[in-house]
């Protein structure tokens, strides 16, 4: 008797979670939720609308990468061409050069610009005078707030044949003045160098914040063990900011394909395309200047897919290696 009862109960529970019931359940929950949170949904509706139109709209528009889009025929009227544009891009003379330039610029900023922020933070962390520290911080944050147009304008000015950098080089080493902005072999150095100059202070903020969160007792313990300041830096401070470093590294790898397109557009010219032209600037020239919409959308989609894949891989590795991850 008891057994039968149990089976009936078990059966009714099973029945309760059948698909149809789950739908009604969810409907009831949704209706109740909507009644309770009417104002919340009203508040978020403009944000959702923005994301649908201006973020998911372009994603929907990416279909033109597989079409032969012409404005006259419109999004839906244009004929499908499959992977035609991708093939064209992979077989073009530009493909290898763009990929190489994009990857090299990202790689150099990864090994030069990224550690620069960490090093500055470590050095600032060792400064005892509060006023001095704050002054250095305020000064090094400053260029971050200056527009790229002005930064690149200053770069043109200072690296000109009659500019201050040539003046110093010529008077110190007696070399011929160099037209830096017109020499393709100088482009990467100028790009990374000016990037560090502009952002090293700003990128140190996040590491300094992470350092201030380190438990002071760890330093006390290290001191008891006879660790000097340098050893404390290596064994307490660095491990303490590691989670921050890993997360920023993941984010950076996710942006690996998106180098500073806007800055390059301001800096490059046909004589430096050799090293300066990257996928983003090529998309701009093909798409906006030459109105080759479908082809350039395909190139842009290629970039976005690679970037997304890299992000997923980097996150996976970080997840395996430790407990720091984005998701």
């Amino acid at each position, binding site marked *: 008797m008891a057994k039968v009862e149990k089976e009936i109960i078990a059966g009714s529970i099973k029945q309760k979670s059948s698909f149809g019931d789950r739908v009604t359940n969810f409907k009831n929950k949704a209706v109740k939720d909507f009644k309770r949170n009417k104002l919340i949904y009203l508040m978020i509706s403009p*944000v959702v609308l923005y994301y649908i139109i201006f973020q998911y709209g372009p994603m929907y528009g990416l279909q033109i990468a597989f079409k032969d889009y012409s404005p006259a025929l419109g999004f839906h009227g244009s004929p499908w061409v499959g992977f035609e544009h991708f093939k064209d891009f992979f077989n073009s003379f530009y493909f290898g050069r763009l990929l190489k330039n994009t990857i090299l610029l990202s790689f150099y900023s990864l090994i030069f610009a990224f550690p620069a922020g960490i090093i500055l933070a470590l050095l600032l962390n060792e400064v005892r005078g509060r006023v001095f520290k704050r002054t250095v911080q305020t000064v090094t944050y*400053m260029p971050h707030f200056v527009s790229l*147009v*002005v930064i690149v*304008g200053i770069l*043109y000015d200072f690296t000109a044949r009659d500019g*201050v950098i040539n003046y110093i080089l010529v008077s110190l080493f007696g070399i011929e003045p160099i037209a830096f902005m017109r020499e393709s072999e100088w482009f990467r150095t100028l790009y990374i160098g000016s990037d560090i100059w502009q952002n090293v202070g700003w990128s140190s903020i*996040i590491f300094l914040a992470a350092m201030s969160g380190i438990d002071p007792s760890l330093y006390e313990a290290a001191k008891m063990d006879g660790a000097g300041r340098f050893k404390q830096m290596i064994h307490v401070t660095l491990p303490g900011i590691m*989670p921050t470093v890993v997360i920023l590294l993941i984010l950076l790898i996710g942006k690996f394909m998106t180098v500073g397109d806007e800055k390059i557009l301001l800096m490059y010219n046909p004589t430096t395309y050799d090293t300066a032209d990257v996928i983003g600037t090529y998309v701009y020239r093909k798409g906006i200047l030459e109105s080759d919409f479908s082809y350039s959308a395909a190139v*842009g989609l290629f970039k976005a897919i690679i970037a997304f894949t890299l992000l997923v891989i980097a996150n996976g590795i970080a997840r395996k290696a430790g407990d720091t991850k984005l998701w």
Partner: protein
Amino acid sequence: MKKTLGERLFDYGNILFLVLLSIVTLYPLLYILIASVSDPAYVAQARGIMLLPKNFTLDAYNMVFKNPMIITSYLNTLFYVVVGTTLNIVLTSLGAYALSRKNVLWKNFIMFMIVFTMFFEGGLIPLYLLVSELNMIDTRWALILPTAVSAFNLIIMRTAFQGIPDSLEESARIDGANDFTILFKIILPLSLPVVAVMVLFYGVYHWNSWFHAMIFLQNRELFPVQLILREILIANDTSSMTTGVSAVDAMPIGETVKYATIVVATLPILCLYPFLQKYFVKGVMIGGIKG
């Protein structure tokens, strides 16, 4: 505690390095300021090395403020900054509030939808076509609507709102307050530091942005000041600035006017950020890590 010799040497080296870094950072900006108030003929000879103004003059600024193109673009920039940032702040705080509530069924789905756009986006060309489909090419909307919300800033603000104790809100709710009242009367006044940082981040973005203006605008009457600066600095076209000056004088005067325009277009922001410094350290921290 007594310092070892090595530690003392490190301290001196460290301070020396940081002083040098500060000088290298500051000098180019200071040079522009100095050159903009100096005698144009002297600036042309100085070859980038000037520590004090020579023959102090405000002529360059006079020319900047008489130039109709610069005035128009400056006013345009103010418009984009004020209207754009206001819209940014309103939408971001509404969104951040809604997403910081508990017991909202669709919250995680909406959050995912927003965060996803940080890692994958349609890109430049589809956005350009969308803006032209919406007939916004050559309108001010093109510089305001496509950047109405930043996911990164939304996350910073949401994290700040989540840190406010529930008890404050509950007692207001008992007094009959609805969500709008709670947001505007309780949450926002308690979050002024983060709001200030958001104003700074969004405001600086609008102030300094030029790329969307370049691709979406053709009508020069709508250009922001950065786009005019680009013509002067990058394309090296100072013709619009030296009207009414003889050709011989035009070159050096053009140079100092160039510097004066940079100062006018940059100084307002550089005067603002030190006041918010202690807040944005926190803002960057919570948004960047816990987001």
